[in-house]
């Protein structure tokens, strides 16, 4: 073997080795990209599955609420009507007891009104038909009737940019948030503020209750309800901003993504 052949063989072997390293590096990059694509696809499928699951849950829940609403309207409502007629008859039969019956009648009238409001807010069809803004008015009216907490509602704009599904989610989230505030916060004031136009939607729900540590609560095992609120909003294309300070209160802000 002459010198040229030795040089050539060593250099070519070295070049082959270098080529091998380059091929290995390229193969790693390609496989990493494919893995990333698969992971993204998997994440998309998972998200889609979660959305479908949430949709089914919503449908089941809405059906149950609709049924409850119908039951309140058709059954309890009819009983109320029967009681009204009965009281009217009693008033005619016993004019001397008219004043006593009027008090009972007033209470019954208030109960019927409240029942009607509750029935409407439970009914998806009503929400779909009347729209979010009107249904919110009804729900706020119902909350105001509870006397405590003191509820204030400011509304700017009269056009909702949300889809029907988003409106339903906003309304249910609002119900859940206010229920939580009523049950746990000990708030004396509930401040609602809605700002909506063709392009933007911002709905803020604030209370002056005892508040909580957001990070710790989200990390604890007791935060299922809170996580659920975030998840439902996210899947419906909504964003929730939560701020809470101990002894100062809590604010939820729902906006369109």
């Amino acid at each position: 073997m002459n010198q040229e052949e030795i040089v050539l063989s060593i250099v070519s072997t070295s070049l082959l080795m270098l080529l091998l390293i380059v091929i290995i590096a390229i193969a790693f990059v390609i496989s990493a990209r494919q893995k990333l694509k698969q992971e993204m696809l998997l994440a998309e499928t998972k998200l889609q599955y979660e959305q479908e699951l949430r949709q089914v849950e919503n449908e089941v829940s809405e059906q149950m609420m609709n049924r409850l609403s119908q039951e309140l309207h058709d059954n309890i409502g009819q009983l109320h009507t029967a009681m009204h007629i009965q009281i009217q008859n009693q008033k005619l039969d016993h004019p001397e007891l008219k004043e006593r019956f009027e008090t009972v009648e007033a209470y019954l009238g208030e109960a019927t009104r409240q029942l009607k409001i509750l029935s409407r807010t439970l009914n998806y069809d009503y929400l779909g038909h009347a729209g979010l803004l009107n249904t919110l008015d009804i729900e706020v009216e119902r909350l105001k009737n509870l006397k405590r907490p003191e509820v204030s509602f400011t509304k700017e704009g009269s056009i909702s940019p949300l889809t029907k599904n988003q409106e339903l989610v906003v309304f249910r989230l609002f119900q859940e948030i206010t229920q939580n505030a009523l049950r746990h916060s000990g708030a004396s004031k509930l401040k609602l503020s809605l700002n909506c136009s063709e392009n933007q939607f911002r709905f803020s729900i604030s209370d002056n209750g005892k508040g909580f540590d957001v990070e710790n609560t989200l990390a604890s095992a007791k935060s299922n309800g809170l996580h659920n609120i975030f998840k439902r909003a996210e899947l419906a294309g909504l964003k929730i901003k939560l701020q809470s300070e101990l002894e100062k209160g809590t604010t939820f802000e729902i906006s369109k993504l």
Partner: protein
Amino acid sequence: MTWRMFYESFGHVIALIAGGFAFTRMQTFHKLLYLQILLYALSYVSSYLVITYQRTHQLTLNNLWVLNSYSAIEAACLLLAFYTQLYQKREKQVLALLVLPYLVLLLYDWSAHSIYSFYSLSFYAECVLFVLIYSYLLYRIVHRHPTEWKTKPETWMVIGLMLYYAGTAPYMALFNLLNQSHTKLLYVLHLIVNDLLCNARYLLLALGFWLLYKQNKPLQRA
């Protein structure tokens, strides 16, 4: 400074400077690679001094014992650097298994050959070992950061090491043979294989250090 000294060391000097800038942002992995560069500088200067001394005292010119000693220390540095990137017990066990043949061959070279001849067998094993383990590290970096691997300093450092060890393996394996019969050829091959790849290796290390320097905060482990 002769042109050859410049050619042999310019990549290395750039890596030293880049490493100096990035030193405060280095983690153990980077520091060990930087230490290896410093040791290389030390061995280069030592080899030069040894040859100069031998030449002035008209002794036989041979500085291979410096190269042999440095090779073992370099291997230790690079193994330690790789070890800092291992988190699982199984990975460490596999590393121990891979290091074993290298250690056996190194012991064989020590016992069977004079320190004045190059330990080509153990160096060849070192090449195979480093190509294997740093390929694994490259695989892990690219898979953990599939979109940002290009900006990871470790990517370029690892590629530099892999290219050097894969490219010099054939030349180093035949080093003793060429040293005995084709000394001039060895010189030529040293220039076009070893020095070229050495520059590529240290320039890629310098690129890694530069990327590290550009990072705003210390990096997490690769």
